[in-house]
């Protein structure tokens, strides 16, 4: 990364101008940078210029009647600390707590997680499960895209050249939970993770399974209902586990992953269905 240039625009217009004047691979936005810097140092990314989003006023946490709007550069630690978020979208807190360690979460952002579309991102499965969308801003104005259409594959998104993630919009309230499995509970990569939510309006369950190629897989169900039986949950979980595409790697074999998907889907749904779903239960060993 020798010779890279860095600029920190303080307005949206200024920021967008940097992207309109250069070829896409030459200009890379940086928010928290906790993931991007690893790629820069390893030479996997080699832009001529980094455009820092940290000076932009994109850090809001705003409550609309049925939506929570989070500025794309708001650090995860702030979201994690907000008791209203915990109340409205409990699964988001669980997912954020699965990201790195506390110091890393003071830097890492939701927008960065989405833009980088890391295969092991802990927040993407949850955002998929709750039906979040991203508001994008570019030279041609704003557009809103569901996360389901935004994250296309590992490291691949629907961002057009010159477009930036302005904010993330979550429907609220949204009973939700996030369950993961790793060798080590903290500071580890989730081998398999499941975000789940229930939409009381439509009576629809959505689960998103992370750790799956090419990107987290979304599964929906309208037969389970608000108080699903254990047997129904097991049947659904097993069916999901059978059809998700899985691969083995150094962290876990394919067979074990499939087993874990079934277990975690069931646990996630049970956690959401329970009234007091957020407690001391932080992980898979619970």
């Amino acid at each position: 990364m020798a010779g890279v240039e860095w600029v920190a625009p303080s307005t949206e217009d200024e920021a967008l101008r940097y992207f309109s004047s250069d070829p896409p691979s030459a200009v890379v936005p940086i928010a928290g940078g906790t993931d991007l810097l690893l790629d820069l140092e390893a030479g996997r990314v080699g832009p001529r210029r980094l455009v820092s989003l940290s000076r932009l006023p994109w850090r809001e946490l705003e409550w609309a009647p049925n939506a929570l709007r989070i500025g794309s550069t708001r650090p995860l630690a702030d979201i994690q600390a907000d008791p209203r978020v915990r109340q409205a979208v409990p699964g988001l807190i669980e997912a954020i707590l699965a990201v790195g360690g506390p110091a890393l979460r003071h830097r890492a952002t939701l927008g960065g997680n989405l833009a980088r579309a890391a295969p092991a991102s802990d927040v993407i499965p949850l955002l998929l499960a709750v039906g979040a969308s991203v508001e994008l801003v570019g030279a041609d104005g704003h557009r809103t895209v569901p996360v389901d259409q935004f994250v296309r594959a590992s490291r691949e998104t629907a961002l057009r050249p010159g477009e930036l993630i302005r904010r993330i919009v979550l429907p609220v309230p949204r009973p939700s939970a996030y369950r993961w499995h790793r060798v080590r509970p903290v500071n580890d990569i989730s081998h398999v993770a499941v975000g789940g939510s229930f939409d009381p309006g439509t009576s629809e369950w959505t689960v998103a399974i992370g750790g799956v190629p090419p990107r987290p897989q979304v599964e929906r169900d309208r037969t389970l209902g608000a108080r699903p039986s254990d047997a129904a949950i097991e049947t659904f979980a097993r069916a999901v586990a059978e059809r998700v595409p899985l691969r083995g790697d150094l962290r876990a074999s394919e067979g074990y992953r499939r087993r874990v998907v079934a277990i975690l889907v069931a646990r996630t749904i049970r956690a959401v269905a329970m009234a007091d779903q957020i407690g001391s239960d932080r992980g898979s060993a619970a």
Partner: protein
Amino acid sequence: MSYSVRPDALEKLTGQVLYGVDVERPGMWWGALVPSPAAAGRLVAIDASAVADEEAVVVTAADLPRLLPNGSGDPERPIFPSTAVRYRGEPVAAVAAPTLERARAAAARVRVRLDAEAPVEDLDRLFPDWPSPETMRDHPLVNGHVLARFGPVDRAFRTADELFQETYRTSGVHQVPLEPHACVADATGSVWHVTTSTQTPFGCREDTASLLGIPESSLVVEGSWVGGAFGSKGSALLEPYALVLSRASGRPVRLALSYAEEFQLGRTTLPSVLRLETALRNGRVVGRRARLLLDTGASLPGGDFTLGYAAGFLLGPYGAPALEIEGYAIRTHKPPFGPHRAPFIPQVAFAIESHLTHLAAHLGEDPIRLRRATVWTEGQTTTLGQRVGPFGLDRCLERAAEVVRAWRVDLPAGHGVGTGAGFWSTGAGAGGEARVVLTPTAVEVEQSEREIGSGSVLRGVAAVVERVLGLPPSHVVVRYQDTASGPFDSGVFGSRTVAALGQAAEKASRRLLTVLQERAGLRSTPRLAVADGRIVLEAPGTSAPVETLFTDSERRAGRLVVDGRHYGRAEGGIDPSRAVVGEFHPFTDFTAAAHVAEVEVDRELGAVRVVRYHAIHDVGTLIDRRTATAQVEGGVAMGLGEALTEEMLWRDDGRLENPGLLDYRLMTITDVPPIEVEFVEGFRGAGPFGAKGLGEIPIVPVPATIAAAIHDALGRPLFELPMTPERIARALAERTVDRPPVGRGAPA
């Protein structure tokens, strides 16, 4: 509660100490290593023509005759290969440049051309079936063979009515000191100098000088503060490269490893396959055999120490009417096997202790009672026929049984309680010397070891001196000196610091009292005390400032200096009638521990949570409770990693798949349970006041203990380390408890 504060605490807590990675010299350049891109093959050429940086200096094997005063260095151990590479990442060249970025950039442009060959990495692939003696006799990859036997082994196995046979597998594990290897070398003058993060300054000097073919007298090693070592920072690693780079560039050169390099170059514990067999007759043990295949990586011919040492541990601290052990060191294309906190013995203990746990279950016996029936006690002999000294394991096991009983009361469903034991030999190494310096206001201990973290130097050695002289910690200061001015010592390794260097300091302290006694004309041995900030000699009816007993020259120097030395000895040799083949290494002092763990196992996922832990240790005599407790806590946590999460994963092409802390998983603050530490005293060791070393033994029983607790929770045996959730889930998925005679202990 009173606290004996570590003398280095405040400096470390405020960021004042300088580790190897922190050292800078004026005009210093930065070094980088060029790694071999393949694990095996013939070196064709090293081409530095693409290095665009005109200032950068590149050194390969071809440059050594020009840079070194006496040829190319040690022909048996070349620092750069000139014909064949031995493992992936082996340094084939080194680069120095004015900045790290430039050094790395230049190193990346050095082209290494190789006729690559298929490497040998995996023991199971190499020996799909347990190899016969015929297979092994002339096998080109066998780099060591040991065989020892006692009693009527053949008859025991021939006449057995049941054979209890198991196969265990263990993984490569890394020391991971949080500070990577780092040094700054200056070879621009006639005496070469290196400041380095080392746990053995004299060992490093000897090894570096030998590798470079220079006399030790023309090399000075200065130890920096050490950010953890755990065996990895003995002998030489970076120092020879940094010195030749300094020679080539005419500047001091700093060379430090990245974490990825640390993993890839790591001389550490490598994988093994262990087979254990117990011959039973009418439900009684009549004989036991252990077989070991140990991956020793790219060890040099005859250069493996571990096999002959590990052999004595294979059957644990337990007797049987007939015993046999046999082991082979296998050469592979991994970095050479190297010392790692009780090297390979936690893995050995995992196998033998688990074997006993499973055997007890098979026989319907209590596992602790089964162990206590044959555990060594003082006066008995080891597997290799060595006499056992004072040995407190039976007492530790007795206490463990009480802990287990207490923990079993109201044990929740899904939880299990297990016990594991282990022993260790302490005080290895040639010996050491220390100087005790008496001044009017303090006692200084001059010695040549840098504190590596355990507290064994700054608290352990100091506590010995305090105890002999009668002084409080505030008036005893341990000082460090480099190899040019300090007294010789073997190093901070082998659990020897308090036990061996401590004895040198103890002897010097006692001699100091004798000198003062003679000068004061006292009939009994005096003690020292502090009065009004001055050191005074105290004896019945006497109390005098010590300087009144100084000679004129001592008064002018302001100090009275007394030397002490200690050179260790093995405790009775190995019985030659038992040692059939190979070279074995005797133990020097016997320390032991029994541990108890409670675990909770998620039966669906296979995830383990360690709920609580109790460690009972035979320490001989406790010298400093707080330092000793801290050693046990740290050792247990490291052992939990080896039990549950730590594993180096090599691909068939010799590439390490997880050279970093994301996928090489150390225990976190969340994983480590409350640890209760208990000491058993009275089984006196050879150290000061009967102390035994405590650096390594705490890690030894841990994987076995966790395995026993999981076994208790699930009723399923585990045969492979680490016991990851996936391996546990696999064991749970099996219909029957399977102990195949050969091949995977836990078949996939």
